[in-house]
């Protein structure tokens, strides 16, 4: 399914490197000493049984949780503790396992909100809705419309997202993340709760995002078929520990992974 051009991911530079990161809540260890990297332009899957620490790992990457130990390097610069909006500023976007849209707003406004970072015009121009503020609204609207076109959600653009079916909500959420023009896009189970057709559509969109916008993607997914089709490399976690890391074929035949999925590990 991957585009035939065949970028050489293996030789790519690391966009994000996680080194020896550990995270605990109270006494509970969520992540223990995990190291891995995400290379520029790749689709990186993170898999593992429930409670393996996958979502926690994403939360660490985009600044929700501060790891107790370890180092994170993003775009070549080591990163200290930060808030999520700082991660956003740095170029990390994110979708959630349970859709986290702004329910009271239309699909269009949700995606427009995703461009908050790109909008700079001052308060008074906005108050008057003229000049630079208007020009900016229009410019950003055009960019957002391209995303709407890309995700084929024209027909729901002015509908409140709360009223949309689940599959479309997920698509709008992806649109909002895309609107940020991120360098790194984190997708937390983008296909959870979807039927086969919706899954296929979403896979297509993820591949297209990667190919068309060149966005680096890290995604958590349960459907192994999807993971194998989509990703360049797969990281496997179990109980907060990394048990495998490699190209899909390798991971698939890794004994530790098979055990973890059959519930035999430890």
């Amino acid at each position: 399914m991957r585009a035939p051009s065949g970028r050489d991911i293996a030789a790519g530079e690391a966009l994000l490197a996680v080194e020896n990161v550990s995270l605990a809540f109270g006494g509970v260890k969520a992540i223990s000493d995990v190291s891995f990297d995400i290379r520029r332009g790749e689709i990186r899957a993170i898999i593992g049984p429930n409670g393996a620490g996958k979502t926690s790992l994403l939360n660490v990457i985009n600044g929700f949780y501060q790891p107790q130990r370890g180092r994170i390097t993003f775009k070549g610069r080591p990163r200290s503790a930060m808030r999520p909006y700082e991660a956003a500023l740095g170029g990390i976007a994110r979708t959630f396992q349970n859709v986290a849209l702004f329910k009271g707003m239309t699909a269009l406004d949700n995606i427009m909100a995703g461009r908050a970072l790109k909008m700079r015009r001052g308060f008074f121009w906005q108050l008057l809705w003229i000049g630079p503020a208007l020009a900016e609204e229009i410019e950003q609207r055009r960019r957002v419309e391209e995303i709407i076109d890309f995700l084929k959600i024209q027909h729901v653009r002015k509908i409140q997202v709360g009223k949309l079916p689940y599959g479309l909500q997920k698509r709008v959420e992806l649109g909002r993340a895309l609107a940020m023009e991120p360098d790194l896009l984190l997708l937390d189970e983008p296909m959870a709760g979807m039927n086969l057709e919706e899954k296929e559509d979403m896979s297509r969109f993820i591949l297209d995002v990667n190919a068309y916008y060149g966005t680096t993607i890290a995604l958590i997914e349960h459907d192994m078929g999807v993971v194998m089709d989509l990703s360049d490399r797969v990281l496997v976690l179990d109980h907060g520990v990394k048990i495998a890391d490699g190209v899909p074929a390798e991971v698939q035949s890794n004994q530790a992974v098979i055990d973890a999925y059959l519930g035999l590990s430890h």
Partner: protein
Amino acid sequence: MRDNNLPANGGKGLAARGTGRGEGRIAVATEAVCADTFPKLLMRNARLFAGRPAYRHKDLGIWQVWTWAQVLDEVRAFSVGLQELGLARNDKVAIIGSNRPRLYWAMCAAQALGGVPVPIYADSVAEEMAYILDHAEVTIAVVEDQEQVDKLLSIVERLPRLVLIVYDEPRGLRDYDHQRLKWIDDVQKVGRDRLSAGAGRLQRWEAAVAAGRGEDLAVMLYTSGTTGRPKGVMLTFDNLIVSAINGNRFDSLGPDEEVVAYLPLAWVGDHVFSYAQPFTAGFCVNCPESPETVSEDRREIGTTYAFAPPRIYENLITLTMVRMEDAGRFKRHMFHYFLAVARRWGEKILNREKVPLHARLLYWFGERLMYGPLKNRLGVSRIRLAYTAGEAIGPEIFRFWRALGVNLKQLYGQTEASVYITAQPDGEIYADTVGRPNIGVDIKIDDNGEVLFKSPGVFAGYYKDPEKTAETKTPDGWVHTGDAGLIDTKSGHLKIIDRAKDVGRLNDGSLLAPKYIENKLKFYPNIREAVVYGDKRDFVCAMLNIDLTAVGNWAERNNIVYGSYQELAGHPQVYDMLAEHVEEVNRSLADEGMAGAQIRRFLVLHKELDADDGEITRTQKVRRAFVAQRYAPLIAALYGGAREADISTEVTFEDGRKGMLSARVKIRDVQTMPVPTMEKAA
């Protein structure tokens, strides 16, 4: 106000003759004849209507507009670009995709250089496309998006002549091998670069346009037909332009019309109504955002001139009825009350007949409270003229629209005639006729009832098929339509009964026009499709398709649980309901003196007739013989007297995979009205 009895003796001379309404229009008509190809018309329009909108496309959330002058610029750049990439005179250029301005421009860009556009149905599977591309010897394909590119790439090995694929929508195509794949923007850029490099290039292009002649081949439209391989109907510029101008004059179409282009590009209807007529009359073509938003887009634009097969009008009524069933009691009563008022008086008022004052008053209220808002919701309130064509329309459906004040008219046309054969002039509207010959058209009825015509729009021939051409076109220029018809003595209009070959007789000698009965059945919102058999049989039988929207809605209201289309279709209560419909049809057939052709038995098919399975054509016509063959066991059971029958058919899914679908279908007997003995004797 206007002379409806124009002599039906066609030709260019007539087209150029003014009818004495506004000078401007005469000027347009005259100039159009000087401009005898579409590229020449484009250059004329860019002069005459420079700043007026020519194309709108809902894209990126708003209506992007191009004026005629801008369109000329775009087409010119495109055309020069194509030339640089190797397009030569008489090359065939396939156009595949939905209604987008740039695909229409591609046609004109090709025509400017003497190329011949060959629009192909965008939903055709790769196999169908391969046949046409090969048969038409296509060298360049201009397509919409990745989907079509993928289709073409899958068959490209078999098409050595196809050297270039040009696409409109770049999404997903970035990483493709671009050796013989080009984005329209890049083609245009090549063109623009050449044009700006020196004035000579522009003159050369204009010379190429000037070299085009009216008698040149303008377009090839492949008709799917009901049997056999598609045939390439060759139409010249003269065919299309003269027909279009005559059509414009017949209905006084001017540069102010708004049409929404949503029908398949490969259909002659779309080609004339969204390409030839806008080019000749100078009005604006509006392309919808996506197939899902057509009705929304239609409402935004407010079409003034519409053209659609009956199915569209039918669907809108079904939608209206279904929605009104869900409305509150008060509103529902009001709706039905005013609908009754409209049915009684609406047509008369539209036809400017004399009606009593109270009726006018009631209708006025109805217009304010019901018809106006309804038309507004359906996006038809600005419609000045709407045509239904392609198939006969149910009289009830036809009257419904006219009763609401929509000037719906019937038109009879064919690809081989560049559409126009007959049409109903304003003020002479009948539900069961297709009107008088259009300007420039002669018709006659054959001994066996077949309609023949002669007109400036008569096609040049079937591509690479002189045999078929000779079969259809007599040496003295008459064309066989393949339809059986008669001239109505009262109105002088043509009446189409059925396909000439489909009109049959029962074993007892009664006349059977299957389509006529099918249309009666299909008027019921619950019945989506009907196929009637009886030729050389003892009695008439019908196979029905339910309408999932209407019946599903009914089921919901009546707490009928169903898991699938198949289950709903086989539900006994659904059968009861349909049996009532069939009996009503029988009654009306008996009333109209066709008692012999009443339906004795019927069944409800377990699946919808589907174009992907070849059961209906892409233009939604039932392939009766094919269906008969495919469902032979069912037909045998219908005539064999069995209570039910097993059927197993191969179906094609949306993604092209195939599978088997089996079902046990029940058969129902229906009451018939007694056949008067007099009738039988006759």
